[in-house]
């Protein structure tokens, strides 16, 4: 497949549409009345057309310029997904500046690093919460000159002269734009496709975060490739609720939206996403596996609470779906009886279920960011949701591999995306090349040189291989793959994902590298296990209490034994069955640095922090006392302690049926 050029744009015009501000203005000209963005405010969906959005962006750009924002400056953007924060990205780009979206749930101290590293002069933030955080660290960031806020609530008495309300900035900018119309035109004309369009800081599973510089050209190439691959056009609707600092949101809610011209919908608040999803009914949907996992957990909890008839019907038709649902979706031949049963299932179960999930209108849904459990993946596909996997990282605009419709394999991430070239290094590491590669790490030539080799390939750090059909399969992070003492390959992620498919298990951390056997920490899912406990009339006071209950241990043990039985079937991983486990006394939390902001386990940090527990797992002890410091959302600290029980689990002899 050739690299696509702007699908719906008339030939000749497309060549000029090589920066985001030009795309924005082109939409305002060609489809001025189509909805560009919506946001639910005070219970009602508000809408801005492309023409209106472009006016706001222009106003914001001129306002920023009046505050001294210049070509090449970085603009910090901190907050939930709000229309005006997306516009701020475009406004900065109009002036040749570089937006730097930051994780809105980070505590103030975490923000300091990025603010200093990127040399931020101006920050646009959502509300008082973010303003307070910036004020807290402002002394450590002498370069920070102006803070602009979107929502004035609670900020009336803040008298600092460097605080500005966004409304005022836009209003000033608009009047400037009226009198100096050529100013912006010149600025936009000066933009070039190889200018840096955005800086995204890597979540930093290793070391300090690095600012990944992506150009207009790279992002637009990735977005055009994706849009043509899945035939996205201006009629699409998406709900933008993932952190703006994540490359995935950037590609889907910003780059692809500006390339294809579809409508971006911003939820009312982060807690209302499920309701908003139902109201919007997006046609295109993107979420990390965790979100799909949570949705499934909620469905399962509610089904457990449903009446006997409904429950029976649900399980019967889910079995039908498991048998033939994915084949129906892929258009493969399915027997007459199954086809009929599936149609009935659609009427009674899958249709209503999709409606509850807000997924009735989905044409394409993607998941990425972490490996997705095969059972979880199969569940969504079997009820008729075209869920696909993609593979990519911040450095590649989240655009390396995509699964084509009809060629879905549960354990692969698909074919190289249009324009992308993939190679497997001798050590199994995946190398990629293409127009979507990063320009550089901000002010880190050493890191840039380390990650891009002499032939221009980006080294992903993931281990994988290409199967006979050309699909890429990911095994694990190259550095996470270890070996047991007996030489068996130990891929922790693989085991953890199997554990996490149980709705009772929220997080798992497996250990085994340079050890005789595999052991695991478990975090129970407080929603699912809590509901399970309530139905049994078990009282509990909170996570800590529930996690320590013998009945809960029994429940988790059963789950692990099932995983072990499953692992025993595969000769490659039979040796890595879990021998011993414990249920942690607290949930792993990004505030305590145990998870990244994208909620991946920081393996080495956890291993270090809970070294005493790992020791206990391998020394054969039955209990271990532990005290841990926890940070509350406001940065205050407290302690939780517990006597943790450690249990042995049944393991199974390797079944070599397949080999025979």
């Amino acid at each position, binding site marked *: 497949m050739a690299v696509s050029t702007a699908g719906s744009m008339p030939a000749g015009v497309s060549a000029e549409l090589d920066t985001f501000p030009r795309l924005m203005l082109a939409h305002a000209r060609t489809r001025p009345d189509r909805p560009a963005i919506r946001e639910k*405010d*005070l*219970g*009602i969906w508000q809408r801005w057309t492309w023409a209106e959005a472009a006016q706001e962006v222009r106003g914001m750009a001129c306002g920023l310029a009046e505050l001294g924002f210049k070509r090449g400056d970085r603009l910090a953007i901190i907050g939930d997904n709000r229309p005006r924060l997306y516009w701020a990205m475009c406004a900065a780009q109009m002036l040749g500046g570089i937006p730097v979206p930051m994780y809105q749930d980070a505590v103030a101290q975490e923000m300091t690093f990025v603010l200093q590293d990127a040399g931020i002069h101006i920050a646009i933030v959502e509300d008082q919460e973010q303003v307070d955080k910036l004020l807290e660290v402002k002394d450590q960031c002498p370069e920070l000159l102006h803070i602009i806020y979107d929502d004035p*609530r*609670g900020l*009336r*008495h803040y008298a600092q002269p460097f605080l500005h309300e966004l409304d005022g900035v836009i209003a000033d900018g608009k009047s400037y734009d009226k009198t100096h119309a050529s100013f912006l035109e010149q600025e936009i004309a000066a933009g070039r496709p190889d200018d840096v369009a955005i800086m995204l800081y890597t979540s930093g599973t290793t070391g300090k975060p690095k600012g990944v510089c992506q150009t207009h050209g790279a992002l637009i190439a990735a977005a055009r490739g994706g849009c043509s691959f899945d035939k996205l056009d201006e009629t699409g609707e998406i709900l933008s609720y993932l952190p703006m600092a994540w490359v995935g949101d950037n590609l889907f809610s910003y780059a692809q939206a500006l390339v294809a011209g579809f409508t971006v919908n911003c939820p*009312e*608040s982060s*807690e*209302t996403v499920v*309701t908003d999803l139902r109201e919007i009914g997006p046609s295109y949907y993107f979420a990390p596996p965790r979100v799909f996992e949570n949705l499934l957990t909620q469905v399962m909890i509610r089904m457990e609470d449903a009446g006997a008839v409904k429950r029976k019907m649900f399980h019967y038709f889910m079995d039908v779906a498991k048998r033939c649902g994915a084949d129906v979706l892929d258009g493969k031949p399915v027997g007459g009886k199954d086809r009929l049963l599936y149609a009935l299932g659609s009427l009674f179960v899958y249709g209503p279920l999709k409606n509850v999930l807000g997924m009735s209108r989905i044409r394409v849904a993607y998941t990425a960011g972490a490996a997705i459990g095969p059972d979880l993946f199969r569940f969504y596909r079997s009820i008729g949701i075209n869920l696909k996997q993609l593979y990519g990282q911040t450095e590649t605009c989240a655009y390396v591999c995509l699964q084509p419709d009809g060629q879905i394999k549960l354990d692969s991430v698909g074919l190289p995306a249009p324009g992308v070239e993939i190679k497997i290094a001798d050590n199994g590491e995946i190398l990629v090349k293409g127009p979507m590669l990063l320009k550089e790490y901000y002010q880190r030539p050493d890191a840039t040189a380390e990650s891009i080799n002499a032939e221009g390939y980006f080294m992903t750090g993931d281990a994988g291989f290409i199967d006979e059909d050309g699909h890429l399969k990911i095994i694990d992070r190259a550095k996470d793959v270890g070996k047991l003492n007996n030489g068996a390959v130990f891929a922790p992620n693989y085991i953890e994902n199997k554990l996490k498919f149980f709705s009772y298990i929220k997080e798992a951390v497996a250990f085994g590298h340079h050890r005789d056997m595999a052991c695991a920490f478990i975090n129970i899912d407080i929603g699912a296990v809590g509901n399970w406990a309530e139905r049994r009339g078990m009282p509990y006071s909170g996570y800590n209490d529930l996690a320590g209950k013998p009945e809960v241990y029994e429940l988790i043990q059963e789950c692990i034994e099932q995983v072990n039985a499953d692992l025993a079937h595969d000769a490659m991983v039979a040796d890595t069955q879990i021998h011993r486990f414990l249920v942690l006394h607290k949930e792993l939390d990004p505030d305590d640095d145990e998870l990244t902001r994208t909620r991946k386990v920081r393996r080495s940090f956890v291993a270090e922090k809970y070294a005493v527990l790992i020791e206990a797992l391998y020394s054969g002890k039955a209990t271990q006392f532990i005290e841990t410091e926890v940070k*509350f*959302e*406001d940065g*205050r600290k407290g302690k939780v302690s517990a006597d943790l029980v450690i249990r042995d689990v049944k393991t199974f002899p390797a079944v070599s049926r397949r080999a025979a």
Partner: protein
Amino acid sequence: MARLIGEVILDLQNVSLSFGGVNALVDISFDVREHEVRAIIGPNGAGKSSMLNVINGVYRPQAGEIILRGEHFRQMNPYKAACAGIARTFQNIALFKGMSVLDNIMTGRNLKMKANIFQQAFWMGAAQREELEHRAKVEEIIDFLEIQHIRKTPVGRLPYGLQKRVDLARALAMEPQILLLDEPMAGMNIEEKQDMSRFILDVNDQMGTTIVLIEHDMGVVMDVSDRVVVLDYGKKIGDGSPDEVRGNPEVISAYLGASH
């Protein structure tokens, strides 16, 4: 703080209340100024809730006077109090458990509904127009208290901390001038308490509402209130700024816990 504390808006003079032989309140006088946060503290059974009940007319004191914006009352009654702009929340949440959050808050608009019962029953003319206006106001409060995600959830299914917030929302729906809060933070964890403190301060600051609250958590009281009155066994034993009260020996021995 740019918030301006104004004149005395509510003045209680020599209020006494007894139930049979039990003296719940004995000769209590204190005042509340406009726009301030006034806390009432004291040990269990000190008469704090009785005090609020006197202010909004649930209990009728045997002696004393209530002066509300210069108008003298021997005693209030709940309807008069509500019409005079006094709203309250309850220690044991008194919401309609089976109704949604939205509907619960809408009941707070009841006094402001002018359409007649016939119009309301058939949702005609004035009633329809009015409901849209009230709904807009209610949505502002929902936004203010950040409870958008539970708008349509029946109150009975909510955790305690959120029910307390809905209780506050309903009181705010009356657009009160004086808001009486009876232990708004009882039974909450640290984060919930922080959220609630912030909401109380925001209400006070942005809506200019005068707030009288009863609270057990000393940290909260000292943080949020402008002046504190201390009760013990129905008597007033202290009155003043949080610092003054903290230093008052009588208060320390009665409540804050003296060194023995």
